[in-house]
């Protein structure tokens, strides 16, 4: 038996050590921020889930074991709010992934004139603060607002009550969300511009029409970008909160149809003042987001194509 020589890492030169030290100093602010505002609060909320911290009842602090998790399983409001989030996701995710892609394809087309102007127009709403955008949309979607007036003009006698009908409020929120598609369009446009033109030339030589070029060249080449927008959209949906908070003062109106999980979480913390149970909800949200994201990564092996080696 011969001894296997152990390869030792070559000692760092003085200059390399200096560079490493400087590099560390540059990332230090981020590390401090991450520890102070993300890592430590996360650990703290995890510890809270095993305690009974609440501001509304004057109980002494005690260890409650898995009581908060047990309560979570029997909490109708928590599951109802998760269902609200899921319903919104089912409608919103296809829109937020497909529409920016299709609009980018349209803007990128050689047959569309004024592509530059279109790019500016499509991106402009994204620059408007989202709260302001939501309030503008509120005035457009109210029962005697612009959208209903337009629908009446084209013959819809009883247009939907977008913000007051539990059935229509989710489609109403999706409409409002269209306001922020600008960044998705720009990302997709950047992706489209990065597809090598020789692939299209080759496809044309093989007799492929527009649809086949889209299906067999554009979509596979754009799959990393589509995957990226999908992951961001999933995370955004799980954190969806601001618009219903602004439009309905966080009440969940109409009839609980906008009590998204994140809104319920916010209510639990700041309205019901139940810090420990709120932490438990936050951890559930984190776990669900993590599981969905990991699942998407696993599935991405089947449809996302990377042209370079990893």
């Amino acid at each position, binding site marked *: 038996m011969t001894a296997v020589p152990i390869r030792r890492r070559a000692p760092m030169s003085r200059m390399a050590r200096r560079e490493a030290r400087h590099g560390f100093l540059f990332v230090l602010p981020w590390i401090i921020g991450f520890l102070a505002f993300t890592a430590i609060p996360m650990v703290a909320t995890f510890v809270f889930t095993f305690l009974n911290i609440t*501001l*509304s*009842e*004057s109980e002494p602090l005690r260890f409650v074991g898995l009581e908060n998790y047990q*309560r979570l399983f*029997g909490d*109708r*409001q928590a599951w109802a709010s998760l269902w609200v989030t899921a319903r919104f996701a089912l409608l919103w995710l296809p829109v937020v992934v497909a529409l920016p892609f299709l609009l980018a394809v349209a803007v990128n087309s050689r047959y569309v004139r004024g592509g530059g102007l279109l790019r500016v127009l499509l991106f402009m709403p994204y620059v408007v603060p989202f709260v302001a955008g939501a309030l503008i949309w509120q005035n457009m979607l*109210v*029962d*005697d607002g612009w959208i209903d007036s337009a629908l009446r003009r084209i013959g819809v006698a009883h247009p939907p*009550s977008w*913000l*007051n*009908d*539990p059935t229509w409020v989710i489609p109403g929120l999706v409409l409002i969300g269209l306001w922020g598609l600008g960044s998705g369009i720009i990302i997709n446009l950047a992706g489209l511009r990065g597809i090598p033109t020789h692939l299209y030339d080759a496809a044309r030589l093989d007799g492929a029409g527009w649809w086949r070029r889209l299906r067999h060249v554009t979509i596979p080449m754009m799959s990393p970008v589509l995957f990226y927008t999908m992951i961001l959209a999933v995370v955004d949906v799980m954190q969806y909160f601001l618009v219903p908070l602004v439009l309905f*003062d966080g*009440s*969940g*109106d*109409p*009839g*609980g149809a906008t*009590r998204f999980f994140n809104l319920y979480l916010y*209510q639990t913390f*700041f*309205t*019901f*003042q139940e*810090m420990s149970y709120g932490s438990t909800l936050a951890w559930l949200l984190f776990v669900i987001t993590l599981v969905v994201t990991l699942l998407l990564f696993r599935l991405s092996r089947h449809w996302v194509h990377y042209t370079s080696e990893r």
Partner: protein
Amino acid sequence: MNGTRPRLLPALAALASVLTLAACGPGAGTRTGAAPVELRWYCCLGTGEQADQVKVERAVVDKFNARHRDIRVKLEVVTYNSARDTLATQIASGNGPDVVGPVGVGGAAAFHGQWLDLGPFIKSSAFDLSTYAEGTADLYRIGSVQEGLPFAIYPSTLYYKADLFTEAGLAEPPHKYGEKYRWPDGREVEWNYDTLKELALKLTVDKNGKDATEDGFDPESIVQYGFEPARDDLRYQGAAFGAGSLDSGDGETVKIPDAWADAWRFFYDGMWKDRFIMTGPVFETDQFNGDGAAFFSGHVAMSVNFLWSTYGVAGAGTDWNLAAMPSHDGTTTSPTSADTFRILARSKHPAEAFEFLSYLVGPASGELLSAYGAMPARTADQDAFFGKLAGQFTNTVDWQVVKDSVRYADTPHSEAYMPKYNQTLSILGTYRSRWMTKGGLDMDVELKNMRDEIQDVWDR
């Protein structure tokens, strides 16, 4: 070097003089010789956020500060919509204010157990409670804890538009409690919610001029509604039919009071079946939502509301008046809101906070009550208040109805503390919104589901 020394010495001497003068500043002249105690007054869990009101609040603080060199009060105005969450966050972070208000029974109940017991301070300062009507101070007593001192009360009455009654050939509702209502055919009937419903149907009119009792009435084109309940809070709606609480008495079991269930059925059927109350979507339209209250639009014949809605009632025109609250099952109830100021139990300066609170409900109360449009809890001040209030309107209003309504205040108070207060309110709010926006519901099932859902929360 030599050149700098002569300039440095005078500069150091000047600095020393400035520091000495600063040390002898206003703070050093206080009674105790220490820096003044800093108090924070947190507004607005109830009324108080309007620009005109804030102006008065600031003036009141300035006057207090001018008279008390040992206490410095700072006003913090947070708008009503976010006031509750902000206060919760402040308390959670150990940064709570000292004095909070004006806050009603419900706003205070949301922070149950966190208010200072004023009892010892009332005793030690010999605060005079005899200036209030008997039992008024008890409105602010939760168990053995005296959380507040009487300040403002807002009884409920029936607001109505007299011209719409005249137009329909109907007599106006009675102003005196116990009086009967007289129909055009001479019949005299008890002034109760059944009578109100009959009236409301006749006063609900579509664009063709047909009322809700006539054939061919089109519920899709209503231009005038007969009745508008106070739709902000289901407990208030319930209390207008009869005082009660969701707490059956043991602090553990939920029971919807019969009068409240009747009130909620009346509300739901009024919207979706009988059509004399507007549905949620209609309520949200510009045509009927006059500054947050449908009656202010001028297209509603009758409405139950607190006295504070005088703030926008001018929008209803110059022919509105006040009538007695209708009875239900032989009992008349006027849900009464009661605002005051409270001190957080965690205040570091409870004695100074009580001094400021005594000032707010005492010498400053006149200015504040006037700004809030609130009826003084102190009986001696009530006539002057109504005299001033009457001057704001060109029409003659029967303010005596308000004074008479005090006798019918809801006890127990509809906003009184119940277990899991905020969660229960959230569930009530969801059902309220659901009923306003969805027709065809079975109210028996709805009431059962609501009870079960609240019980679930209470059982945790």
